[in-house]
């Protein structure tokens, strides 16, 4: 009888340890799921922004070419200057937004490339704002600034894609971790349950034995 009780107690301890471990693993799994889901929603947002910026870079190339092609406007200084500004404006706007956004992210602290890009972009924005309207600069100055702006935009796209790709790899890792942890947790709970069933069986056996002893 004492052996049965001692064995039951060992089983009970195993079941207890299994349930504590199962809670820990389930907590880890849930954390990984949360991490994967939040990274996913960031990814969706960033992907969309990359496409916007991509489109703007291509569009600015088109606008640049259009500026040469619109011969009716070539004669009109105002129209030409308006075109020059419009080529710049959307890309500069995006760079300003990106600086504000990236400065508040963790990526900014860990990525040297990104930090350098933010610094370069800030210098560019200060210079741009000093000039005011880009229309007032000469053709050479315009070409230099245009090349700088295009470089910054393209650099950002490369960095953003790299960040996105590493985030995607992180999501895959999180999902795998969550799956593993949840499987372990389920198995541990199953072991705890089997232990409980054993304990229950042993207790029933003990009860019946005790009843029989009493009846004798």
């Amino acid at each position, binding site marked *: 009888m004492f052996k049965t009780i001692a064995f039951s107690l060992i089983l009970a301890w195993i079941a207890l340890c299994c349930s504590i471990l199962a809670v820990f693993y389930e907590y880890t799994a849930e954390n990984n799921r949360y991490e994967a889901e939040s990274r996913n929603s960031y990814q969706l947002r960033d992907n969309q922004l990359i496409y916007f910026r991509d489109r703007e870079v291509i569009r600015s190339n088109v606008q640049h070419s259009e500026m040469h092609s619109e011969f009716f406007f070539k004669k009109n200084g105002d129209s*030409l200057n308006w075109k020059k500004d419009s080529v710049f404006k959307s890309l500069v706007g995006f760079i300003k937004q990106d600086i504000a956004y990236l400065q508040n992210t963790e990526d900014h602290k860990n990525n040297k490339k990104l930090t350098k890009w933010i610094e370069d972009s800030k210098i560019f924005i200060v210079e741009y704002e000093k000039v005011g309207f880009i229309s007032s600069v000469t053709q050479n100055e315009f070409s230099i600034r245009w090349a700088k702006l295009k470089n910054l935009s393209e650099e950002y796209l490369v960095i953003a894609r790299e960040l996105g790709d590493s985030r995607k790899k992180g999501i895959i890792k999180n999902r795998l971790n969550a799956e593993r942890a949840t499987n372990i947790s389920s198995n541990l709970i199953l072991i705890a349950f089997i232990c409980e069933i054993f304990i229950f069986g042993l207790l029933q056996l003990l009860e019946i034995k005790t009843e029989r002893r009493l009846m004798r």
Partner: protein
Amino acid sequence: MTEVIWKKTGINEILIRCLIFSGCFGATALLIDQYAIQQESMIRSTQTSNYQLETNSNMLKNYVGHLAESEQLFMNFNQSIVTRLGIMLYEEMNFLNTQEFTENCEEPFCITFVDSKEIAITDILIFIEKLKETTFDNVVSLRIFMDDLEVLDILLDDLIKALTFSEDRFVSSGAEAQIPEITQNLGLLLDDFLSHSYALRQAIEQKSDAMHEKTITERAFISQLMSKKQILLLIGVFFQVLSLICLLIFFRLFLPLIARYTDK
């Protein structure tokens, strides 16, 4: 003495049955709860994968939109290049590209962009390079997540090959190319790009729709699992209550017996 009381009343059998039933109901409740716990973990896993699938489907849809915009931009670019080349081709329009035109301009800041065939070709090459880069990088970036998009690789390869072929054609012909030849090459490139991009767009759209359909099926499955889990939990509670009732009956019968035994 106890034996006599027990045998007389036949209460011993009832007591043992009560204990056995209580144990059986308790074990059934445990079993059902265990099954419900397993369902919960399955529900969470399916929910996470469903969310991922939905995000993937949305990302593909966004890319389709982006590709459509790129097509439109290419058409606009083509039009602007053809106009520029047209200005260069027709002598009566050449005054637009000369310095005199700038000098005749009244505003002091009016600076005409002097155009040439070389500048136009450079612009074309920059545009092709940019288009190649973004199309390739974006699809590769999407492929990190989605292993089952092999069909896109073939279509993407075709598109990139078409763009590279045109790029080489422009580079090899260089500045010696005649304006009509450049216009024709650009037209061919646009046709090529549009047909390949359309095929790629269609394949991505189909994939995105298939993913969307799958998310709906998965959601129905999740909802079924959730209702199953709820029913299991309720049944578990029902068995727990039955087990408790049996225990209560056991104590209701057992305690008076003990009391009677201790009184005597």
